[in-house]
């Protein structure tokens, strides 16, 4: 083979930061091809695609509103991902946040207590964490794979919410349609940008980013998590059990996903519907990876992904493209990122290796090289 990969003696820090840019660049190139194939002037279409949704203050508000839950969930998931704990159940944990805070909002909303909102946030976060605790328990106690259990519980959570909203939570004045009564004003997040829907959820997400950054980059626990992600043996040597990493990782993800669920009903929805989550739990996985499993990086990747969501809708209006390109671009970007990540640990060489010595290597997660 003319080209081959050679392991770098040291992971390349430069490539850690360059990889997401390469991924975005490659996605843009594919996007240009798709635009051209659809009969548009590619560059103009790209400009339209990117700037179309954010031409005024309302648009910017919508953008940040969309980014808020993605950033929030991704920060929580990152705690687990760094330790090799794969929580793919954020979708269900978000729904549990909706169920717990929704129950409070419906029961105590009319009372109008100023304590209601904080209580909803706490309850939503705890409920999300409790839902995540099930796979954590089954993993640590019975060794059951957390990816599969957390995924199965997404379906269960969805059906539970459906049962509530089609049943006892129906709005008495709503002709038995599957929706709750509108939440009382006391149960809604205050708006922070006039004439938009942007609310204090953004501050909560940014607070989570800060907390995540302190936990992961500035605390001993963060170091231990990283070590666990590298190898179980190393973690035990450092006095940190996989068990603790699983618990910490799962609970952090569940907590933030649950709070994100509160943000949906107390924010853009203002009511409880059977379909409370638009797949943020899955999209946040991409956000976490694209953000290099780093809280600050997640802010940028969250903004990028949310813009992609809005663009998908406007592309229908202005470019006549189907909205499914959002999913297409999302998946593609993650693909390109993972492909580009190889350059963190390897460089491309022309000659074959002189002396092949076989050894399996630890999975090349970017956590290994993350700053």
């Amino acid at each position, binding site marked *: 083979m003319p080209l081959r990969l050679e392991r770098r003696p040291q992971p390349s820090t430069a490539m850690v930061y360059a990889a997401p840019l390469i991924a975005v660049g490659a996605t843009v190139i594919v996007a240009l091809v798709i635009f051209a194939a659809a009969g*548009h*002037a590619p560059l*103009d*279409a790209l*400009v*339209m695609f990117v700037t*179309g949704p954010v*031409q005024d203050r*309302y648009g910017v508000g*919508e953008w940040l509103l*969309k980014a808020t839950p993605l950033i929030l969930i991704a920060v929580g998931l990152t705690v687990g991902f760094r330790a090799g704990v794969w929580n793919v159940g954020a979708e269900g944990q978000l729904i549990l946040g909706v169920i717990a805070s929704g129950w409070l909002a419906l029961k105590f909303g009319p009372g109008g207590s100023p304590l209601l909102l904080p209580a909803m946030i706490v309850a939503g976060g705890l409920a999300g964490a409790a839902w995540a605790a099930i796979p954590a328990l089954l993993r640590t106690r019975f060794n059951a794979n957390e990816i599969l259990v957390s995924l199965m519980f997404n379906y269960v959570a969805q*059906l539970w919410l*459906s*049962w509530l909203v*089609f*049943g*006892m939570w*129906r709005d008495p004045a*709503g*002709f*038995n*349609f*599957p*929706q709750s009564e*509108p939440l009382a004003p006391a149960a809604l997040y205050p708006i922070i940008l006039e004439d938009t*829907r942007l609310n204090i959820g953004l501050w909560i997400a940014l607070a989570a980013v800060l907390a995540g950054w302190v936990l992961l980059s500035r605390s001993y626990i963060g170091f231990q998590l990283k070590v666990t992600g590298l190898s179980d043996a190393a973690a035990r040597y450092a006095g940190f059990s996989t068990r603790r990493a699983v618990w910490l990782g799962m609970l952090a993800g569940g907590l933030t996903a649950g709070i994100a669920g509160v943000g*949906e009903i107390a924010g*853009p*929805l*203002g*009511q409880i*519907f*059977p*379909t409370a989550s*638009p797949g943020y739990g899955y999209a946040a996985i991409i956000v976490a990876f694209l953000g290099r499993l780093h809280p600050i990086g997640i802010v940028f990747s969250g903004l990028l992904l949310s813009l992609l*969501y*809005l663009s998908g*809708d*406007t592309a*229908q*209006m*202005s*470019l*006549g493209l*189907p*909205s*499914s390109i959002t999913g297409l671009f999302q998946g593609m970007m993650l693909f390109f990122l993972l492909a580009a990540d190889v350059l963190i640990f390897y460089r491309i060489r022309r000659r074959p290796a002189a002396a092949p010595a076989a050894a399996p290597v630890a999975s090349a997660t970017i956590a290994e090289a993350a700053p």
Partner: protein
Amino acid sequence: MQSTFTRRRFLGTAAAGSLAAATGFRPAFAQDEVLKVGVIHMGAISDTGWEYFQAEAWRKLKANYGDKVEVTVLENIAQIQDCERLFRQLATTGHKLIFGTTFSQYASLKKLAPSLGKAHFECCAGIEAGPNLGVFEAKHFEGTYLTGIAAGRMTKSNVLGWVGAFPVPQVVYSLNAFLLGARSVNPEATLKVVWANAWVDPGKEKDAVAALVAQGADVISGSPNTPVQGLAAEEKGVWSIGSTGDFSAYVKKAQLCSFELDWSAAHIEAAEGVINGTWAPTSRWRGLGPGGFVKMTTASPELPESVAAEMAAAEAAIIAGTLHPFAGPVKDQSGTVRFAAGATPGDDELKGMNWLVEGVQGTLPSAG
């Protein structure tokens, strides 16, 4: 806004109306102006099912007005979170008449409509009219009562089957009327109901048909968006009845009869109102008959003429107002009389129906 329109024209997707809209808002609708209509579909527009009939309505609107109307269509807007932004975007880009296509969009429209007075809003399957927001919905039960007659006559086992996606009120009163129609000609008929609890899982719908057939059902109806229920019935050798959709192009042998939804009257009336400046928010709840939203389709040759005649007579009586599918006495599953003998329920009693009539085997989520 100006820049949006320039770029759009550059891209070749803008039409004649955008210049007028971009050069300043006008207080009333000018006669030479093109009416820009916006429609947001929750799912993908396809060849059958709910979204298809929504699309047929604006297609007929376009056909009716020609160049005078321009329609902007968004599909696959599945998330309620996005509705508010997109309806607003339509309203602020010169669309003067905006249609929501499902109940799920109603809450967003109710919130938005009062503040966006330059446009007028209509929501299909919305709960009730509000400021600057009209609603329209079909009396599905008039259709299912008639197809129920066919089912009652054609069943040999006296067991009918219904596959539902989710128990929304429209489906609940539809399946109730289906059994009432069947019992009007065959008092022995019962109806088994299975909920798929998924909007999109045709595989499960097919399994549900198999389960119903195995338990003796020999006429299957339901609330499908795809022909899969009919195809499954055909495979199993039982009859199929199309509810809110004519699937005879796919279900060649098994489909006995069906009814469709025709929203074109709602679209055309609303457009006329906006053009003439007479639009006002109304609630339209219509069934069979001229200008109605429920249309019976051509029945299969397999349906005996005597049954077809019976259905036609009932249809005429419903249109004339002499027959009401839910005319009392109607009992629920527990045997409690819901509508007393001689009474005819009002619209509000029907709209939010959350109980099943006597003879239905199945459950609804309890109100708790």
